[in-house]
């Protein structure tokens, strides 16, 4: 999976695709780990954003190496969706905080997990 060179200049200095993919996989794993380990709803949400941005990195890298714009287009949509999710998610967290004065997911226990 090397693909053709889409970058017009300095092709000998180009960072191999694998580096991007490994970094992206690492960031994604950090996000997943954070979601599983952290208990503050806002931090959990930040970790989810980290996952989405790790995917964006993969998409941009693939897009550049394949010389195809679809991946970049998808990144635009992902960013917009992430913003919409942020707005809705923060609103939900605020309304929960108003009723319960906490954003700790462990203390959400009206409904049994």
């Amino acid at each position, binding site marked *: 999976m090397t693909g053709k060179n889409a970058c017009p200049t300095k092709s000998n200095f180009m960072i191999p695709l694998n580096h991007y993919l490994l970094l992206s996989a690492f960031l994604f794993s950090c996000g997943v780990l954070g979601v599983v380990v952290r208990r503050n709803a806002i931090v959990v949400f930040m970790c989810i954003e980290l996952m989405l941005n790790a995917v964006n990195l993969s998409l941009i890298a693939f897009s550049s190496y394949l010389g195809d714009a679809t991946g970049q287009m998808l990144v*635009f949509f992902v*960013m*917009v969706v992430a913003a919409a999710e942020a707005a809705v998610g923060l609103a939900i967290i605020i309304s929960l905080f108003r009723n319960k004065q906490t954003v700790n997911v462990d203390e959400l226990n009206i409904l049994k997990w």
Partner: protein
Amino acid sequence: MQAYIPIFLMIGVGLFLGITFLTLQRFLGPHRPNPEKLSTYESGMPPVRTARERFSVKYYMVAVLFILFDIEVIFLYPWAVNFRALGVFGYIEMILFILILLIGYIYILKKGALQWD
């Protein structure tokens, strides 16, 4: 690894320059602190309180609306780059897009989301 040598050089030079200048000014420059100089710079105004406190939830509303409308604008960017190639079609398309956003804006305006009090 060969390819990364310029980057390491860059890092080395940056560190060297920064550390040199900081040490030089420590020994060469006069050192006369007063409370006025040490206070936080807040655009020339005297600072009122510490910055590490809770903000009013009203800021949150503005911030969220800002994120939404700010991000939607990234769709304008590819259009602006290809403005000529997309022609009338792109223009109409974008007007429709802005109109949809405008309806959202009317909604938040009428619901009083932008009213401070």
